[in-house]
């Protein structure tokens, strides 16, 4: 299923919420986090180093992006640096890492998987704000229930700021879209920004 939405630019930040819930990206094989982000997704090394300071792989805080391997079915979450003692504790390779050793990612040898690898990627806070528009305009695979709930929760805003909806190559009204049950499906969402 594919959905293309043409929206006013000030509506785009609303969509960051679903990027935080996660979206699926596909790569050709298992690889390190750094390889996935910089080579596969084209994120600049310097951006990764300076801005993405909190990283979780399957809920565990990652310190070394070169040795942590992303496999089929992994969940990878990216965030800027966090406030507070615990925020500093979770920072990768930070001074306080000892305080969360029970939830630190342990770089066990990964089972390499060639062929399609699906990764659930979550973007939070400043990272969602900075990388989100590009991902949304390129298109992201979303959990249908998350997307349906998002449209339902933001119906009034979308009705006002969304000028065109194309669902599986056919134009559709927003209220009609909500009547389609795609909650058990994966939907490819792409945003087009109004000039």
């Amino acid at each position, binding site marked *: 299923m594919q959905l293309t939405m043409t929206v006013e630019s000030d509506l785009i*930040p*609303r969509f*960051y*919420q679903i990027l*935080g*819930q996660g979206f699926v990206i596909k790569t050709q094989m298992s690889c390190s986090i750094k390889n996935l982000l910089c080579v596969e997704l084209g994120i600049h090394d310097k951006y990764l180093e*300076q*801005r993405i*300071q*909190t990283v*979780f792989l399957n*809920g*565990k*805080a990652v*310190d070394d992006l070169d040795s942590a391997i992303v496999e089929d079915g992994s969940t990878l*979450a990216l*965030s*800027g*640096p*966090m*406030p*507070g*003692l*615990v*925020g*500093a*504790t*979770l920072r990768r*390779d930070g*001074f*306080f*890492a*000892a*305080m*969360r*050793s*029970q*939830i*630190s990612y342990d770089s066990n040898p990964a089972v390499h998987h060639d062929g399609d690898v699906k990764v659930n990627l*979550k973007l*939070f*806070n*400043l990272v*969602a*704000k900075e990388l989100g528009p590009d991902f949304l305009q390129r298109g992201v695979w979303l959990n249908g229930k998350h997307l349906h709930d998002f449209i339902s929760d933001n119906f009034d*805003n979308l009705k006002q700021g969304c000028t065109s909806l194309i669902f599986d190559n056919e134009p559709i009204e927003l209220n009609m879209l909500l009547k389609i049950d795609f909650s058990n499906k994966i939907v490819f969402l792409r945003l087009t920004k109004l000039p």
Partner: protein
Amino acid sequence: MDKILRINMGADGGPKIKIDSLGDYAGLGGRAMTSTIVAKEVPPTCHPLSEDNKLVIAPGMLSGSTAAMSGRISVGCKSPLTGGIKEANAGGQPSQMLGRLGYAAIVLEGKPKENNLYKIFINKDGVDIKVDNSLCMLGNYDLVDKMKAEHGEKIACISIGQAGEMKLAGASIAFTDMELRPTRHAGRGGVGAVMGSKGVKVIVIDDAGTKARGPANPDNFKEANKAFVAGLRKHSVTGEGLPAYGTNVLTNVISEAGAYPTKNFMWGSFETCQKISGEAQAELENARGGEGTATHGCHRGCIIRCSGTFLDKDGNYLTKQVEYETVWAHGGNCCIDDLDVIAQLDRLDDDFGLDTIEMGATIAVAMEAGLAKFGDGQAAINLVKEVGKGSHLGRLLGSGAAITGKVLGVERVPVVKGQAMPAYDPRGVQGIGVTYATSTQGADHTAGYAVATNILGVGGSVAPLKPEGQIELSRNLQIATAAIDSTGMCLFIAFAIMDQEDTFQALLDLINAFSGQSLTGDDVNALGMQVLKAERDFNTRAGFTKQDDRLPDYFKKEKLPPHDITFLVTDEDLDQVHNY
């Protein structure tokens, strides 16, 4: 700041005002001032609501000057919640105003013989104290409106709501913000109950006709302040993340880490946390109030501006931007994922004068006991309203999670020394569990903050990812935090001074240029250790032993999903934290 205002509320013939010189307390500010006075002058075994306890309110060392971020105010006493020494601090305007008026501390002593309620008025001409029983059982918002009507809009207020008057152990003290709203609270440990026991409803401060405190070396001060501000602005946490999203930016991340206490500490992740995240909150606030509504300072001179304004669905002011701890306590911990409900609870807490962490933890315990269903926002609102009404149930809930759990027969009660844990599960982040267990304050996330232990020279050589590092880190963090609390600087400066050595140096230069001293990092460390030792000594004399430095047993037994971990730090290791 060269004087201490002492008011004996129990003096014959009514409250007696005395202005003291600083004496032995010269050079102290903030937590160093409050804890030193309490440790020296309060009998440790006294009843916290008795005439022997004292309530000490102290601005920071730089409060009243033009130094950025210098507006924290410290409150100290023997705690009705923990039975030990208590320091709680807050932002807002009163710290700056008291500094400008020259007061290094206000000490409320004794206890009124009659059942009267007092209003204290302080300005450049002196101090006036009057009985005003018309203030009885007013909420903080109505009370401040009444003070505005009487004294104008250029005042600041320090006040208690109904909870403080009822002397409930979860009662806070409110400090007004820049808009003269009672949104900043010294929340923890029941300090509001001690103010209530002194019969003081409100302290009104008017600094008209005063000037900012002048530095000893104006040129160096100006230069250091400029460098300090630049350091805060260029750091991604203090210059970007906190202004954009506030402290609630933590919600998504802590839940992702599996350390977000959910459903009264049963789970480590909250499935619908996105709905109450800082990102969603900022979006909602800006949509309702216009761009920039989610970025606001709590006092003049704040550069970070981690607060904001929360408007209701109709665009009317409801409360300030709700902070992470409150969003968690009333939200994820109670399985409530509606920001409007959480904002209403925050408003009620501020109005009744309640610690939001304690109340959220208490409501979750009550939910586990079956008084309401987890996730039922309206039921949570109704329970908090019971506290404001002063019903029997409300008085029970307002006494905190430990008492409520005991009365309702709940085993899973997340407290240390009687004080509810904040928004991080100690099984997920075990280092903070060490601090919860061993802090002089009871379970407290700010007791060991992310201060530059390495820069301060108290970090030593800590091996990362080794469990034993948690003990040493917790010890060093507690010392460093006590030092920063004593300066009166907002703790959020910690991130910039941790990462940027030049910003830490700018802070030292700022303090030195203001005071004319030559403090080094070692001196700051020594101050922190001195404060902590005084607090530990008070608690020992109050009857605390190492057995009080423990987490509840269930944290060692119940595995926390999703990582299925228990708290693994041994009692022997915990006993090493204060071995210095």
